[in-house]
């Protein structure tokens, strides 16, 4: 049953396109760079995709419910700053910093959800506001100067390797798994998708929409917070300007993975494929020593091409 459901999830037309695209790109890069298809490089791709990947899981839920979250990157930066600051001052180590970052992100998400419920304004507007607020708070907390030189034990957990994977890569894959189980196997996930499909009907059929929305945004916040910890560990600093524009990259990945930007349809395997598409593209172009200006260009082209191909697909 589990396997069959999983297969039917990944056999969706749009996701299949994404996987085909990923394969084609990988073959192309394999021929153009001898190191592309090595274990080290594959782990590199996963590691480099971890921050976007984790934010992407949260973004998948938000998009699935018919909303949009523009504040994920700002939340990520604020969480990493809060985490760096408290861990440094309270001399924390081990799991505590991870928990602090995740909770800080979750609280940001909770506030966003509360504001959307209270004002009944479109999520676009509220999260645009939260983007500015969270980013500003991160700058205010640090006085604009990144918290450098973290004590080693704060981020030492991030040096661990699990089953040959780096810590960021392992956390991202675990996050994807948790997201997958939540979205496609629980009532919470089912309600998230139903809300995005038809908000009026969800109300009429007795879904507790306000509570559901709080849950979704808090969850997305937690994933951003966790991404914040990973970002902090990788750069060994609490940087208020961390991940500028990453929210758009995360949304790009979700849409590449076949989600309906207007809600009702989104999958975690799709998001993973979308994240990997972007990761492979960037990594491959790096290996071929192509300038980052062109990399941005290619990301844009891929998104446009994917949207175009989707119009030809059987789903529309």
């Amino acid at each position: 049953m589990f396997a069959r459901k999983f297969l039917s999830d990944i056999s969706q037309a749009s996701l299949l396109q994404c996987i085909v695209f990923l394969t084609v790109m990988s073959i192309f890069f394999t021929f153009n760079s001898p190191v592309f298809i090595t274990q080290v490089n594959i782990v590199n791709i996963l590691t480099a995709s971890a921050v976007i990947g984790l934010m992407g899981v949260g973004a998948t839920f938000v998009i699935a419910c018919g909303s949009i979250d523009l504040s994920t990157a700002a939340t990520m930066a604020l969480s990493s700053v809060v985490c760096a600051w408290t861990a440094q001052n309270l001399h924390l180590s081990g799991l505590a910093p991870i928990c602090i970052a995740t909770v800080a992100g979750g609280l940001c998400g909770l506030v966003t959800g509360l504001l959307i419920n209270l004002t009944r304004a479109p999520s676009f507007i509220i999260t645009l506001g939260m983007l500015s607020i969270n980013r500003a708070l991160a700058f205010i907390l640090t006085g604009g100067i990144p918290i450098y030189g973290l004590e080693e034990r704060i981020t030492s957990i991030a040096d661990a390797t699990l089953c040959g994977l780096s810590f960021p890569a392992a956390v991202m894959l675990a996050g994807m798994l948790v997201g997958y189980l939540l979205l496609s196997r629980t009532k919470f996930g089912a309600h998230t998708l139903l809300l995005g499909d038809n908000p009026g009907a969800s109300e009429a059929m007795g879904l507790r929409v306000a509570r559901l929305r709080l849950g979704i945004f808090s969850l997305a916040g937690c994933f951003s917070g966790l991404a914040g910890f990973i970002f902090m560990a990788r750069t060994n600093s609490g940087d208020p300007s961390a991940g500028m524009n990453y929210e758009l990259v995360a949304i790009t990945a979700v849409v590449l993975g076949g989600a309906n930007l207007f809600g009702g349809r989104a999958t975690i395997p799709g998001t993973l494929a979308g994240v990997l598409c972007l990761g492979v593209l960037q990594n491959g172009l790096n290996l071929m020593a192509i300038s980052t200006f062109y990399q941005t260009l290619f990301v844009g082209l891929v998104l446009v091409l994917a949207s175009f191909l989707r119009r030809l697909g059987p789903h529309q």
Partner: protein
Amino acid sequence: MSELKLQSVKKSFGVTTVLQGVTTSFSSGTVTAIVGDNGAGKSTLCKTIAGVYHPDSGKISLDDLSLTHLSPHETREAGIEMIYQDLALAKQHDVVSNLYFGREKTRWPGWLDRKTMSAQSRVVLEQMGIKLPSLRTPIGLLSGGQQQAVAIARALLFSPTVLIMDEPTAALAAREIEHILDLIKKLKERGLIVILISHRLNDVFAVSDRIIALRSGSIVADNLVQETSMQDVVAQIMIA
């Protein structure tokens, strides 16, 4: 025997008053039709009973239970089901998800139990004589009549006490309408409180026991079906 009571129910949206003090009651084993012109307030009245809207003043109760301030979640728990005029379906979701919309079955420790839901959906659709190409296709790809059938099946899935049908035959072909009318008669025999909104007076006269005419949010006529005629009803609806 249950009784659904409305006492001077008023509802406005901004400056437009849509229901101006509706008082009436509905009892088990009867089919009550609500007729009226477009914009008379029929859907609003029923959505107020279902908890989608809350009355500005007045009371609604089902036997001893006050429904006045309940949410749609709570009215469904109380056994009130409504088939909405727009069907309230999730178009990108399949038949099973729509049948169990808001009432998904789970098994330990909280996973969705799709297997049971699919199996039971199949049984229910079979019982109701509804034939669908597949339970897995997004419902938006089914025909209007098939979608309506799913909305009806959903309303009956959890054996309600009150069934409100807002234009349940609007998208159906003649043969399917017959089917629905038969179904309504059966539900009446089972002792449900059935409220039927319809523009098709033929259908109304075929199944109803009582006809309420609504005009600009007020009840202007309330007759047993044998005491009235189609001309009377048309006159009640039309004349201002």
